[in-house]
């Protein structure tokens, strides 16, 4: 808890607060010395210091310690208004006061350090965990197709005479498929590193949303897979200004995800609506959807749903999110009308109703 406070109070205010507190307390005590005696004042000051030490950094505490020791000596220990100390007892008290105050400051410092190290350790563990997840998912996603390519081509080279034509052609298709899969993964990694480098500058150009959607499903339709893609785009939508390349990738990732993670014959609806200054694109499937507690995590890098089938690096959705955010837009997932996953992209954009004008 002290950490929270420490983080919220800037250093400069820490100095100010601790010095003011010491001064205020000293002034109030000054009028009470006759009743409580100057020794109690020392304890009051020490208690204040201890409280400050709970929340503040070492330097403000050190300064308050020195300041309070001097004040106590000057204003409270008789004779007042001098730094002289007459009795051995007072001298002893003053030295002890000083030592206790210093010990407070040093202890605070040490506790802070231990906290910092603990935090670092946790961060390191998290990074390591992320790194391991990355390595696991990468080594699986890259090695599987590589293993296929090496195995199949070895087979073709060594057993050329023994293989039937049918098996040869099967092996060749496997090589081709594996290479395409490998290429897709490399594409994902390159996109991710583009995002990580922070150099994504959308190159916006006028875009026909209808054309954008059909361009992004073209690659998927070229390899039909028993999924039904239902595009619901109204005629006469205005043109919008977007980075078409990035948005095509976003839609491809969302739709391809739906294709991979829903059973055959599932329906994937892609809908769009654009009006003044805003464009909304929805990709909805009628599969199982995401459990509510996992929804906020699905856009995280390398995040994979529990018990989800293998395949995919866990990068597709975080790339989609990154590209949408590069447009200052938002992407969310909720449960669709049929219980499937429903991704909603909202992007602020210029619109042009040029297509409503009668041409020529």
């Amino acid at each position, binding site marked *: 808890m002290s950490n929270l406070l420490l983080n919220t109070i800037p250093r400069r205010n820490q100095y100010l607060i601790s010095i003011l507190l010491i001064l205020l307390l000293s002034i109030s005590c000054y009028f009470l010395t006759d009743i409580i005696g100057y020794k109690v004042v020392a304890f009051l000051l020490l208690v204040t210091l201890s409280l400050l030490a709970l929340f503040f950094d070492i330097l403000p505490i050190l300064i308050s310690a020195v300041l309070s020791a001097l004040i106590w000596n000057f204003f409270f220990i008789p004779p007042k208004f001098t730094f002289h100390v007459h009795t051995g007892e007072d001298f002893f008290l003053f030295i002890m006061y000083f030592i206790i105050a210093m010990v407070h400051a040093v202890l605070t410092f040490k506790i802070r350090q231990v906290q910092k190290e603990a935090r670092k350790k946790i961060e390191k563990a998290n990074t390591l965990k992320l790194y391991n997840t990355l390595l696991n998912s990468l080594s699986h996603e890259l090695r599987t197709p590589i293993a296929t390519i090496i195995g199949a081509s070895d087979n073709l080279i060594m057993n050329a005479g023994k293989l039937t034509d049918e098996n040869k052609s099967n092996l060749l298709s496997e090589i081709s498929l594996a*290479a395409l899969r490998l290429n897709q993964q490399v594409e994902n990694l390159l996109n991710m590193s583009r995002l990580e480098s922070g150099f994504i500058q959308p*190159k916006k150009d006028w875009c026909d949303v209808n*054309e954008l959607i059909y361009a992004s499903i073209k690659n998927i339709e070229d390899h039909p897979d028993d999924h039904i893609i239902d595009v619901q785009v109204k005629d006469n939508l205005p043109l919008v200004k977007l980075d078409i390349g990035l948005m*095509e990738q976003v839609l491809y990732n969302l739709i391809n995800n739906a294709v991979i993670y829903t059973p055959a014959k599932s329906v994937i609806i892609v809908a769009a609506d654009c009006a003044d200054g805003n464009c909304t694109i929805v990709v909805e499937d009628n599969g199982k959807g995401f459990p509510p507690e996992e929804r906020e995590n699905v856009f995280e890098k390398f995040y994979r749903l529990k018990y989800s089938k293998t395949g995919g690096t866990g990068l597709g959705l975080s790339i989609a999110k990154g590209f949408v955010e590069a447009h200052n837009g938002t992407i969310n997932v909720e449960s669709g009308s049929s219980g499937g996953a429903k991704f909603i992209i909202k992007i602020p954009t210029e619109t*042009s109703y*040029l*297509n409503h004008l009668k*041409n*020529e």
Partner: protein
Amino acid sequence: MNSSQILIIDDEAQIRKLLQITLQSNDYQVVEAATAKEGMIAAANHPPDLILLDLGLPDEDGHSVLKQLRQWYSKPIIIISVQNNEEDIVKALDNAANDYLVKPFRTGELLARIRSALRGGTTDDTSPVLDYNGLLIDLTTRTVKKNEEVVKLTVTEYNLLTLFVKNEGKVLTHHFLLYNVWGPDFIDQSQYLRVYIAQLRKKIEDDPNRPNYIITETGVGYRFVAKAFIV
């Protein structure tokens, strides 16, 4: 019979090997060069019918090789590159490359692009009526028919279509299309292009959303292909 000669300029031995086998088994003659220098000497000594040029050469930037070749070489040059960013593609096309293929590419795609580039410009004056699988374009009467029915095109739509047809198989960049159809003041007015492409597709495509003739090259431009050549 195919005996067109193709020069491959690529520093990767594996890619050259692959291309050599692919092309030779499709009856092309192949000449290989591993550097820009070798490539330009080879091209000058025996001008090939087509050049496949890699942009990432060890001794010189591919874009500058392209420019130098274009000073005297007018036959097709197809770029093959691992660079898939739109600027590189547009730059190469603006420097008069005929086409641009991103590695890795599919063999069928490569062969189709080569055939189309070699055929390029044969939509010539011998016949004023062009037939693209049911899409008839009569250049003398300026009429267009789709499945025997006359398609009414506006002047701009017709100009756009004929520009595509004259460059069949070739990627035409947004700037090129805007410049040649609307004029130099319009090269940044891509909204015109979007609207007219959509209108033209509605009139000539069977399914405007899954076009067979006017293909979108995302972020770069459009390409007119005749159905028969889609592999």
